């Protein structure tokens, strides 16, 4: 079925992947998608309209079709949500299938609100947009005049791109995202192993469609559904899926293996598996030697990589970028990456091409340890990266690792053999803010794939093809401090030190780091905050700290769809449109077969009657226009757009020359036939494949974005700058530093993550999540009987380090490892007084259970600044 659909679109996958991908996975799955297609067809005949959209209920972007009965006012009776049956990221989970219910939700914010009580008290009055926008502008202006533009901070989960239009236009560098609580460690791991270009969660991913054994260390696959579907297909093929997790995630309730590891000890487990592979010589020596920096030399003293500059060369940048490698012949050679400009034969344009500086006939020596003489005459002890690994791994013989990880030694041996001999793949992680040793773990997980030799090959950890879709944005050049708008207007930003970078120089986004700025005004004060699509009190570890931070701002504006908790701390709450009311063309993340694909978003739902929500960018820019018309004019935004329609019309002017038109023009120039096929598929299916995956490219043919261009199992990147010193080259395991380990009988690890039915933000308010998401803390029944805790007992839970205390009922379940309490994020523990005021009776359920961030210490590891959302708590039974 799949085969047929994709051929019809004319942009089918490469023949090879097509056959390999579908032969095995025929059967049941194909039938189901066909059935959806038929349902959609019938509804169309009955006068329903089909609109494609990428799901934005969580971050997965699965392909949905919104069906809407034409000629009647849309309501829950006339709107239905389906998975897009041909989509390469197909599938729809329960959270998405309640999208229409969220759109029609009685909880939705409808009008701008102005705070009338004390901050945090949740007392508001409805005001007109005019009053809200004027009020904000009036408060913002003196703040900027007194403290400078950089005193204004923007933060968001998924709408950072939108916020940047406003932050740069205003003149502040401080758009600081959610990453520290989400994917920072994973991104860091990918930066270290593959380079900055590949840091995105879906730039690198396992090729689920062909994988034989998939090991998911702290990845739940609650999202995206496309991957959940591909995993089921993989299982049909006989592949094995293994979850390493103190909690048994929902997808592990079927036929998958579950390895209940002690929290924070995953690194020891992986090293132990490497130890087995090394001892039993199961690793892929050829891959390690040729495609990674395993044979490169590092100092035995401080671990720094040995360069030509140090041994024989000059102090030029070029020689500093040439790394020493030992050959089997016993010589030391130097390797690096070169960049050349070549003309693209298809387009005639010049482009940069990178290649390796290396002599293919040099045979790398993996295992070696010895001494080298520097050009200054000193003799320094050195070893190969592989030897460094072998030494580290030798500390984790399975028997020793079993004691640390709680996983039996023979199981570790079996897992290692399975992964190595079946050429399994370690998932590289998405959400990874757990224990404070996560950067090392995420790097190690990438590196472990190198030992198996399974990188950028079918079934391995692969680079996902990009779609080539560009998006327009304000360009910022850090060297000249200059912003350039799409229309060519330029302006300067005075302060270019992002507030979080003052403390975490490589942070993708560490909002909590503003604590220092807020308390001590160091290095500079921050005073105003715009929160767009983010619930800081559920998002950030250590809720109390975040509450205190919110109290300190002079101005807080929250844009949201729902009356979530952070609204309580806002001076103004602005109602926002949700994704079913917006549109556009986007790339497809997590596409099947690792291809580069794009998709159209045209959900076509109107804003419900009586709801005055506006698209998020409108108020952000309108406030700037009201305070400083000349700054808004930088974008050509010179007069208020009174309606969403007007604003969208104007908004289009920002992206001229980007996005789909640009992509189509490029395709047209290169391959007109393909351009035609892409357009047809987009129109017919709502999506199109632009670029099929070319396996075996990185680093076989093209260098990665690392200092050596190789896959770096030992990171050289930290040695390029002094302020990166907190990140080790070798991702050695270290015990948890983020919180005190539980030690008494009534003390527990607090294990966080998401559950499948609960959801961040929007979904948290949905009836499906209400019905099905566990909000209570979850305890192992054996611990419970030891402590005399009964099902649904009321517990007092106290954070061991911060002393923060809250109450929750408890659910007993063998899905959580002994000694741990599971507490999913975004499920329970809402304390929103605004919500209470708006829906006095019906909101009870949202207050049940826990918000795990209450109990987290808020510890962040250095340099990248990822937070640890796990923690440790003690419990006391209050009543049965």
């Amino acid at each position, binding site marked *: 079925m799949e085969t047929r659909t994709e051929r019809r679109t004319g942009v089918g996958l490469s023949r090879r992947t097509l056959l390999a991908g579908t032969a095995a996975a025929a059967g*049941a*799955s194909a*039938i*189901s998608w066909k*059935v*959806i297609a*038929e*349902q959609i067809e*019938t509804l169309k005949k009955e006068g329903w309209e089909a609109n494609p959209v990428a799901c934005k209920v969580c971050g997965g972007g699965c392909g949905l079709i919104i069906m809407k009965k034409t000629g009647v006012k849309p*309501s*829950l*009776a*006339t*709107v*239905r*949500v*389906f*998975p897009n049956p041909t989509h390469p990221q*197909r*599938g*729809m*989970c*329960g*959270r*998405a*299938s*309640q999208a*229409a*219910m969220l759109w*029609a939700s*009685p909880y939705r914010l409808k009008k701008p609100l102005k705070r009338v009580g004390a901050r945090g008290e949740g007392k508001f009055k409805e005001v007109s947009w005019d009053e809200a926008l004027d009020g904000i502008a009036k408060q913002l202006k003196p703040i900027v005049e007194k403290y400078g533009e950089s005193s204004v901070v923007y933060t968001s989960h998924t709408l950072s791109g939108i916020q940047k239009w406003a932050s740069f236009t205003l003149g502040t560098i401080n758009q600081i995202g959610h990453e520290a609580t989400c994917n920072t460690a994973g991104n860091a791991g990918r930066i270290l192993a593959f380079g900055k270009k590949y840091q995105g969660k879906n730039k690198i991913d396992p090729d689920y469609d062909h994988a034989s054994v998939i090991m998911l260390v702290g990845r739940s*696959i*609650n999202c995206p*559904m496309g991957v*959940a*579907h591909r995993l*089921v297909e993989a*299982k049909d093929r006989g592949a094995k899926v293994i979850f390493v997790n103190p909690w*048994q995630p*929902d*997808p592990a*309730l*079927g*036929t998958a293996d579950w390895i209940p590891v002690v929290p924070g000890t995953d690194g020891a487990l992986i090293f132990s598996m490497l130890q087995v592979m090394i001892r039993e010589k199961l690793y892929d020596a050829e891959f390690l030697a040729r495609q990674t920096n395993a044979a490169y030399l590092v100092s035995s003293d401080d671990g720094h990589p040995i360069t030509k500059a140090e041994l024989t060369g000059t102090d030029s940048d070029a020689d500093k970028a040439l790394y020493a490698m030992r050959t089997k012949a016993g010589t030391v050679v130097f390797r690096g990456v070169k960049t050349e400009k070549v003309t693209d034969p298809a387009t005639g344009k010049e482009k940069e091409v990178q290649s390796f500086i290396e002599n293919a006939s040099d045979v790398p020596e993996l295992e070696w340890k010895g001494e080298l003489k520097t050009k200054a005459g000193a003799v320094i002890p050195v070893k190969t990266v592989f030897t460094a690994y072998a030494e580290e791994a030798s500390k984790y013989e399975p028997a020793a690792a079993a004691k640390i990880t709680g996983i039996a030694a023979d199981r570790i041996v079996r897992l290692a053999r399975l992964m190595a001999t079946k050429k399994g793949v370690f998932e590289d992680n998405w959400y990874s803010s757990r224990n404070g040793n996560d950067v090392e773990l995420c790097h190690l997980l990438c590196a472990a794939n190198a030992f198996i030799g399974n990188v950028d090959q079918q079934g391995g950890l692969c680079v996902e093809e990009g779609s080539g879709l560009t998006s327009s944005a304000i360009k910022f050049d850090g060297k000249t401090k200059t912003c350039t708008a799409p229309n060519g207007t330029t302006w300067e930003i005075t302060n270019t030190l992002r507030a979080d970078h003052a403390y975490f120089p490589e942070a993708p986004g560490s909002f909590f780091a503003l604590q220092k700025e807020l308390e001590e005004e160091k290095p500079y004060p921050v005073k105003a905050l715009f929160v767009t699509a983010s619930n800081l009190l559920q998002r950030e570890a250590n809720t109390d700290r975040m509450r205190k931070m919110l109290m300190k701002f002079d101005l807080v504006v929250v844009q949201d769809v729902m009356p979530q908790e952070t609204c309580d701390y806002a001076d103004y709450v602005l109602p926002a449109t949700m994704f079913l009311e917006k549109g556009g063309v986007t790339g497809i993340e997590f596409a099947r077969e690792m291809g580069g694909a794009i998709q159209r978003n045209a959900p076509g739902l109107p804003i419900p009657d009586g709801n005055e929500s506006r698209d998020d960018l409108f108020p952000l820019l309108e406030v700037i226009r009201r305070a400083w018309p000349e700054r808004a004019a930088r974008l050509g935004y010179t007069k208020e757009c009174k309606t969403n329609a007007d604003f969208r019309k104007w908004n289009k002017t920002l992206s001229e020359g980007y996005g789909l038109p640009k992509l189509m023009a490029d395709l047209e120039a290169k391959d007109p036939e393909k351009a035609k096929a892409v357009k047809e598929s987009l129109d017919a299916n709502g999506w199109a494949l632009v670029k099929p995956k070319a396996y075996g490219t990185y680093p076989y043919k093209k260098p990665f974005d690392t200092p050596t261009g190789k896959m770096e199992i030992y990171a050289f990147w930290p040695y390029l700058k002094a302020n990166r010193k907190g990140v080790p080259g070798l991702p050695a395991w270290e015990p948890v530093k983020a919180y005190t380990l539980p030690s008494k009988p009534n003390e527990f690890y607090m294990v966080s993550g998401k559950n*499948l*039915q609960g959801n961040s933000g929007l979904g948290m308010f949905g*009836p*499906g999540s*209400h*019905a*099905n998401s566990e909000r209570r803390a979850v305890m192992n*029944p054996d611990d419970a009987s030891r402590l005399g805790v009964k099902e649904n007992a009321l517990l007092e839970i106290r954070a061991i380090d911060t002393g923060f205390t809250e109450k929750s009922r408890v659910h*007993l*379940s*063998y*899905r959580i490892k002994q000694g741990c309490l599971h507490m999913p994020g975004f499920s329970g523990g809402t304390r929103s007084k605004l919500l209470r005021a708006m829906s006095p009776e019906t909101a009870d359920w949202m207050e049940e259970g826990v918000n795990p961030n209450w109990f987290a210490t808020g510890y962040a590891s250095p340099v990248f600044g990822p937070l640890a959302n796990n923690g440790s708590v003690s419990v006391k039974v209050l009543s049965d």
Partner: protein
Amino acid sequence: MTEMKPKKQLAHLFNATRCIGCTACMNACAQTNYGDVMASGKPIHGRVMPGNIQKIVMDGNRRPFQIMSQCQQCTDAPCIKACPFGANYRDPETGQVKIDPKRCMGCNYCITACPYDARWSNPLTGLPEKCMGEGCQKLVAEGKDPACVAACPTNARVFGDILDPESAISREIASSRTVKLLEEKGTLPNFFVEVAK
């Protein structure tokens, strides 16, 4: 009343080895069959949302697993036995247990009679609801799969005629290990839970 042999026996198979508990089937059931109930915003006894599926996680077991349960289309259905006016009956065509609104007074006796807790009271009509709702009956009449089956992202559901040995469901049953729920109640359920391939 339940002796007759139907021409077909339409049945659901729920594959516990594939289900990831995403609850899409539950919501698909709601939107396909009970859009009007949702749009009305009326509360429902015992359920947050209208729908015929219940998610049950058996995590008090050492080996936790989950079941998405719904009407079992019992051959010897207690709900049929309970109804005073014969409003619940077995469809001679499909073998499914149906409800005739014309004969129902909304006493909810069938709701307490169903050992599978598969029924609920529709706040708009007062009718006891269960699988299959009208939307799904229409789909099935058109030869399509019901909503929950189609919506499942992991293909954990199969629907079809178990009297036809060639049907997908019959083949799935033949090639796997399935169990039925609460068989000891003597209801002769026609709902298959696949527990191993």
